[in-house]
């Protein structure tokens, strides 16, 4: 079935070396339209490095990162600056929260919209009529996104004053403000309590179904992963060791070994 769907992201043989350390070792994966995919693996497996290579923070040593936007021609992302990658339609969040703390919740989201606006620096200072109109639309869109993540009542709070779970949701709203068709979430449920995690699952489903945004997430909460993602990719020591449906992953001996260590009795 996956073959019929449009392929959005294609990573081929991605390798990232830091000096003598191979953090990611020829990893390939594909994300298709409508998927909620997960990338799992023990700590230090290279998952975040993989994300950093895809989003332009690192320039990969080897391999290709190809983006296939629908109806547009394929773009190779290697070596592009992060702001270009974002303009291509790929957004992400971080493992540790990285909001603009001294800005309001609304401003945090608005800033994500700016890469989708046309008027340049000079005109934004002059503020002619079309700029003001554009600004009004940005505010409107931003409010809609805040409603989606349930933060519209906090629009004018400083983002540092939000509770933890809300800060995570704001990060997602900010990423969505850049109008992505693929969203990378790095441990979105880290540090959340069970209720916050449930809300998050709901939100991720909503983004996938309503906004038609494909999602790739890194997560350690296995219940969450097995619950919402298909397919699942597993990494260990920089290598991809398995991929498949949740059931296939659960039954895969390699995965069990990676998580529980060698079984001496076997």
């Amino acid at each position, binding site marked *: 079935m996956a073959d019929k769907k449009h392929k959005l992201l294609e990573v081929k043989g991605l390798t990232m070396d830091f000096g003598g350390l191979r953090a990611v070792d020829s990893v390939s994966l594909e994300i298709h339209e409508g998927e909620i995919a997960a990338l799992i693996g023990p700590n230090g497996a290279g998952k975040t490095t993989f994300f950093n290579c895809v*989003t*332009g*923070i690192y320039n990969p040593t080897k391999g290709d990162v190809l983006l296939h936007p629908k109806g547009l021609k394929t773009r190779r992302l290697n070596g592009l*600056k*992060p*702001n270009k990658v*974002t*303009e291509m339609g790929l*957004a*992400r969040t*971080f493992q540790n929260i*990285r909001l*603009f*703390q*001294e*800005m309001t919740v609304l*401003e945090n989201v*608005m*800033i*994500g919209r*700016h*890469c*989708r*606006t046309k008027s340049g*620096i000079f005109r*934004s*200072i002059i*503020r002619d009529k079309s700029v003001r109109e554009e*600004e009004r639309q940005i505010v409107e869109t931003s409010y809609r996104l805040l409603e989606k993540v349930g933060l519209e009542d906090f629009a004018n709070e400083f983002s540092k004053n939000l509770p933890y779970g809300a800060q995570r949701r704001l990060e997602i709203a*900010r*990423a969505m*403000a*850049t109008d992505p068709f693929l969203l990378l979430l790095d441990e979105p449920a880290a540090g959340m309590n069970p209720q916050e995690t449930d809300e998050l699952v709901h939100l991720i489903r909503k983004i996938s179904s309503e906004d038609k945004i494909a999602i790739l997430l890194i997560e350690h909460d296995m219940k969450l992963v097995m619950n919402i993602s298909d397919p699942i990719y597993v990494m260990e020591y920089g290598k991809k060791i398995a991929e498949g449906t949740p059931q296939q992953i659960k039954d895969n001996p390699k995965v069990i070994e990676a998580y529980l260590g060698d079984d001496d009795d076997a």
Partner: protein
Amino acid sequence: MEYFLELFFGGLTRGSIYALIALGYTMVYGIIQLINFAHGEIYMIGAFVALIVAGICTIYGLSGVSILILAGIVAVIYACAYGYTLEKVAYRPLRGAPRLSPLISAIGMSIFLQNYVLLAQTPDFLPFPRLIPDFAFMEPVAHIIGSPELVILITTFVTMILLTLLIKKSRVGKAMRATQQDMDMARLVGVNVDRIISLTFIIGSALAAIGGVLVASYIGQVNFYVGFLAGVKAFTAAVLGGIGSIPGAVIGGLVLGWAESFAAGYISSDYEDVFTFGLLILILILRPAGILGKVTKQKV
């Protein structure tokens, strides 16, 4: 009491100029953690350009305030071009290098620009025309605050309000604040960080040029070295207020201006600079982060 007021306004005028220049230091530092030592030279170049334009205007028979405005505009444009180029040539190639490298590059640019003006113009002091006339309505209070002081105060005040509006309200200002808080994250939400850094240098240079023109026409002379002391004083103001903080730069500038003015007026004008730098040392001992600066923990 009148003497006190005279010193008060004298200090306010000085302080507002220091603040104007200090804003350039603090904005650049806030974004790329670099002390732009060549900032004082941009101020000096602004004054020189204004002098040249004023000379030409005088030949064509313009007078007073119209020359000041025209010379100011040309000086600002020129200084912006210098600031933009400076960043592109001396700092951008060193992005990602250890923090000491761009600092040394900045000192190098400062010396280079001084010597360039020295050779291209003259090592002597040049007289700068008094462009600000004495307004008749200022007559009754002229012994406390003169017309030039008034013009300086109004100009700096308006400039600072415009800057605040730009940073607080406009889209570019938002991008600047975002870049200051987390440069990588700003990139990831699509902010073109390189452009924002260029813009920061351009704005800082414009402020320095405005300061340069105002001071030159107030004091009545310029030479290639005026940027150095002005730069060091403004840098002191920025550190005093807490480097990286925009309100801090304004407060630091005013505190420094008053301290100098009162110390010179009540104690001795010979020791003016001693008070300036004594104050700097005192602040660094008692409150290393500056008046409004936040004590930041080094992330490990």
